[in-house]
């Protein structure tokens, strides 16, 4: 009796999560596939994917999604690493900085978008400050559709501000589990800060970095409210198109086709990170 109970224990502990994930993630994914591939008569169809690919904004949304990914993810990884290392030095008052860095975590992405809109718009904070300092005579139009690099730049800034904190939190957690012995050993062998970071911290941080990159990349594929607020329809992204097709254009099938596409890219990116940032338990220092 007792052994039976004991063997059932892990499963009963996992059960709530499993039920939750099945109901709220697996089932919707299955439904999304049905919506994306099933014609009204129940047969398999690629019609919705064709419609998606022929849509005016499809190519642009593909292009901009990957461009954003390319700009945001590496920039954030580096920035978050610097922030995490800084906090990890435990300088006086480091907890205050930790709290400040973590503020964006508590703000919804739409609210963040609106906040940045009030900064970058023609009569916004940035232009006001620049003109009061005498740097600008007339306001600079950051959000003009005729100046896409500028609009894109504002999105990169806003997105970096919004989502670097989550990467930093994961990296900081990773840093904190590295045993002190490693650092002491490095000190004994006379490693300076740079060498210690390069040869001790980074390799040991790889599992956390992997997790952070996966999460951040998935988030990057899902980004859209900040983009929608700052760029409107001028810079379309995949997730935004899915939203627009579902809510505005009332076409769940094409929305699902976009969602499936995002899913495919996300899975591919995750596979890429798992494959090329492979970690063994020995490297992670857990053996």
């Amino acid at each position, binding site marked *: 009796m007792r052994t039976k109970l*004991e063997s059932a*224990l892990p499963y009963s502990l996992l*059960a*709530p999560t499993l039920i939750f994930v099945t109901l709220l993630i697996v089932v919707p994914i299955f439904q999304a596939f049905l919506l994306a591939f099933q014609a009204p008569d129940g047969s398999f169809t690629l019609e919705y994917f064709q419609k998606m690919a022929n849509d005016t904004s499809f190519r642009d949304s593909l292009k901009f999604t990957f461009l954003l990914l390319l700009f945001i993810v590496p920039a954030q990884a580096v920035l978050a690493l610097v922030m995490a290392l800084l906090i990890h030095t435990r300088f006086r008052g480091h907890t205050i900085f930790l709290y400040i860095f973590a503020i964006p975590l508590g703000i919804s992405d739409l609210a963040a978008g609106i906040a940045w809109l009030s900064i970058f718009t023609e009569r916004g904070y940035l232009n006001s400050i620049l003109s009061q300092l005498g740097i600008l005579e007339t306001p600079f139009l950051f959000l003009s559709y005729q*100046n896409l690099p500028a609009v894109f730049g504002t999105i990169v800034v806003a997105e970096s501000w919004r989502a670097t904190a989550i990467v930093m939190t994961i990296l900081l957690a990773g840093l904190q589990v590295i045993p002190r012995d490693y650092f002491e050993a490095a000190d004994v062998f006379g490693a300076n800060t740079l060498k210690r970071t390069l040869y001790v911290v980074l390799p040991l941080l790889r599992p956390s970095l992997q997790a952070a990159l996966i999460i951040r990349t998935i988030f990057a594929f899902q980004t859209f409210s900040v983009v929608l607020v700052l760029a409107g329809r001028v810079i379309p992204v995949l997730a935004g198109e899915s939203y*627009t097709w579902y809510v505005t*254009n009332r076409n769940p099938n094409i929305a699902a086709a976009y969602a499936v596409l995002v899913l495919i890219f996300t899975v591919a990116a995750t596979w890429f990170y798992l494959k090329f940032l492979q970690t063994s338990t020995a490297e992670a220092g857990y053996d």
Partner: protein
Amino acid sequence: MRKSMPVVVGLVVLGAILIACAPAPAPTAVPTQPPAPTSAPQPVAPTTAPPPTEAPTSAPAPTAAPPTVPPTVAPPQPLLFLSTQNTPVEEQEKMRNVILKDFTGAKVDFVSDAEGVVVDRILAEQKSGKITIGAIGVLHGTFPNLLAGNALEDLTPLVAKLSDRPIVKEFMTLGKLGTDKQYYIPWMQATYIMVANKKALQYLPQGASIDSLTYTQLAEWGKNITAATKEKKIGFPAGPSGLMHRLTQGYLYPSYTGGLVTTYRSDDAVKMWTDFKAIWEYTNPQSTTYNNMQDPLLSEEVWVTIDHTARVINAFKNKPDDFVAAPAPAGPKGRYYMSVLAGLGIMKGTPNRAGAEALIEYLTRPNVQAAYLREVSFYPVLESALPTDLPAYVRLEADGVVKQSKALDAKVALLPIGLGTKGGDFNKIQQDTLTRIVLKGEDIKTVLNDEANQLNALMTELKAPCWSPDPPSTGACQAK
């Protein structure tokens, strides 16, 4: 280990409870194929302008809504009021806390959402037979679809009870949806007008009057402003939830071509887009981020604009001395403006018909109609003059609305009719056309041809006949 078992079991049970309580996926997640509106009786498209709001003359209307308690002793029953109107959060708050505050006929739960969501929900409830909705407040063009889905109660008996309301007759006729029964009671109307900062008036082209401007003069005006200020100060609501497509549908297209769908790729349409590109030369390039025009008007990023009355009212409210309201410009075929008519219907098989009827009776009272204008800038559907006790800023805007409807060359265009849940696809065609021609600079004729083909495919799929100002059609409305 044995000790921990109850805890584990408890956790599992708790998890199960939590999951059971978790919000179920929205009913719209699995879309129901709405019945094709083939059998939908088509509404009468009026060819003449329904007399909109009269100029304010006399007779002060009662100010405070006297709370009239219906002669029932029973406590008010819950009533779900589902609407596609007043969706912005501020308007929802006004609706709940001000306009519906004195209504005692039922315990109203006001829910407002996008058209597609509302239509889906109504049709899904109708199909399942589990009805929770009471009153329905949607635009004129949404009703045919609901009628085709057999979701509307016949309101003919209610009409007699409302005979003391001077509701505009043409609007009442529209509410019959082309049948001999009344399916909705007119609720409120709105339109789009031009608003200008007074600083811009000095740059009006020579001999032009702001009250009788043409689109060509608007371009010239923009040019003058840019020459003087080095800034592009015309603005359009071309943001992701802006209503630019309505300006294309109800203002630009009819004013230049006398139609919308049938003339989508006509020579007149080419001329219209050419002229609009000229206006766009002097349009603030941030227009693609503007969802309402009151904010850019107030920040003075924009001096001249055209937008929905409810989306410019804060400009008049916050700086009444700075702005003037004027009719929208005219094109070669006249000064077309869009009349947005919303109506109130009752869900077929509703659990609280009495409450829904009481709500309609309440919302059409003159003082409540006046409250609507005061609070959310939607205009009354009553023949009577506008109340005289309006706040000054509402009067400023109302002035422009009245001037627009009274202009000698004024003509009315209606919102698209009978598109049902496909209204979004229809709007997308106009949005794509604008993006391709104006923002991306593609060849006008090529774009119009492409998009007209899309339009024809959509209209054929919907079997939707033409609506005013396109001439009536026997089959699906098609671009020539």
